[in-house]
């Protein structure tokens, strides 16, 4: 596939690694923000190829991981209502709520369906006027335009039987939270390439200025990540802290203004709870008052939710990079992808699941060599 295969070339990867070995003189800790980047790193074993001192810390950029338990419990309560046709992206179906998950609800007779796009959910609402279609709208700035368009489309079609259960998160405030976390070990960021494709990269300028932390907008293929790492390490080694754009083939300074405009119309910025992390001011999106009719949380009174997080789970520390999954007592024993206790064990982008499926049994820092 064009624009993918080229960026997986093992010879050029070797070049970048060689270069990195030449540049890195000291240990550095970098955070890749986006779960998609975590996925590539772990699936390709990129972190195991890095020079000994260069460590990747997996960031909070997995919407499956950070969607608040209360939202999940609400989703399940709504999905269990007769007449609901509940739709979601695939991986959300596995995330454990306080009591059950969406796949188990489907097995018990609820109509829960996977869609590829929020527009597919709108189409379902159109085709099933007798049902109420709810879409679990999670995601970062990349997904927000799609969800915004779904609302605009449903409004345009006059669909009264469509709504979103929104749990939208914003990346820059989360990066700030990571840096503010006690015990923060992150020295540079690989910023999420597709978030920047939508939002542009100027929004990281204040962060860079305030924390003096290098930010490299990075793509998702092995070469992108290696180059992003190289650029970040180079900044660190040179004592620079700038916003650089590794992913220039997809990311422009100003981002996608049409998409930003749609998001601004449909949503407004609000404080947002991050699962395991807590509430971060101004880090989320909620439906604007004008589109309140499409807010599933307002439409459906599900009574009082008894939210119950698993005590063993240290997902918050894992998400902010202060701990690794192998620090968790439940990791690999009580908590496995088959029986996840926390969200990071669910999505293959989740840090705990990524560790588990790569067969990691101890924290890499404890190991001398690649297994």
């Amino acid at each position, binding site marked *: 596939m064009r624009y993918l295969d080229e960026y997986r070339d093992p010879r050029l990867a070797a070049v970048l690694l060689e270069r990195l070995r030449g540049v890195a003189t000291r240990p550095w800790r970098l955070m890749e923000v986006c779960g998609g980047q975590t996925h590539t790193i772990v699936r390709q074993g990129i972190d195991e190829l890095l020079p000994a001192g260069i460590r990747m810390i997996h960031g909070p950029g997995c919407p499956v991981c950070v969607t608040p338990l209360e939202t999940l419990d609400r989703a399940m309560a709504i999905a269990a209502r007769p007449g609901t046709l509940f739709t979601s992206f695939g991986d959300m179906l596995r995330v454990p709520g306080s009591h059950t998950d969406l796949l188990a609800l489907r097995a018990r007779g609820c109509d829960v369906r996977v869609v590829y796009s929020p527009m597919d959910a709108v189409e379902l609402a159109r085709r099933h006027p007798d049902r109420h279609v709810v879409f679990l709208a999670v995601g970062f700035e990349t997904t927000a335009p799609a969800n915004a368009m779904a609302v605009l489309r449903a409004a*345009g079609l006059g669909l009264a039987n469509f709504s979103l259960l929104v749990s939208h998160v914003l990346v820059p405030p989360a990066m700030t939270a990571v840096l503010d976390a006690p015990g923060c070990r992150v020295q540079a960021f690989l910023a999420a390439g597709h978030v920047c494709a939508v939002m542009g990269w100027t929004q990281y300028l204040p962060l860079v200025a305030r924390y003096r932390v290098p930010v490299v907008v990075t793509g998702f293929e092995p070469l992108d990540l290696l180059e992003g790492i190289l650029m970040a390490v180079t900044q660190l080694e040179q004592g620079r802290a700038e916003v650089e754009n590794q992913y220039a083939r997809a990311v422009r300074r100003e981002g996608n203004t049409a998409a930003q405009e749609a998001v601004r119309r449909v949503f407004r910025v609000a404080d947002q709870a991050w699962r395991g992390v807590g509430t971060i001011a101004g880090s989320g999106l909620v439906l604007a008052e004008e589109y309140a009719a499409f807010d599933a949380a307002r439409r459906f009174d599900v009574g009082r939710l008894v939210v119950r997080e698993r005590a063993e789970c240290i997902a918050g520390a894992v998400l902010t990079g202060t701990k690794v999954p192998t620090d968790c007592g439940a990791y690999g024993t009580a908590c496995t992808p088959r029986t996840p206790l926390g969200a990071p064990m669910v999505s293959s982008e989740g840090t705990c699941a990524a560790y588990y499926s790569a067969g990691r049994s101890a924290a890499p820092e404890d190991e001398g060599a690649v297994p």
Partner: protein
Amino acid sequence: MCLGIPGRVTTTDRDDGLLMGTVDFGGVRKRVCLEYLPDVRPGEYVIVHVGFAITMVDAAEAERTLRVLRAMGDAVAAELGERLP
């Protein structure tokens, strides 16, 4: 998050007012919403996320990155005095 895949726009159309198009991903074709890239033309590459084209692939930039990497490769090869694998 944000799984985005590059593909080539083959056709564009309006579906009930919505700007849509077919994007080819090397033998797989999918209908995609093009509302956020209203100026896209067939033949151009876009990155698709959850059914939306969110950005265009800049062919020159893509080439430039690879050229730099290849040049690096040659530089490394020159440094080491041998061809890389």
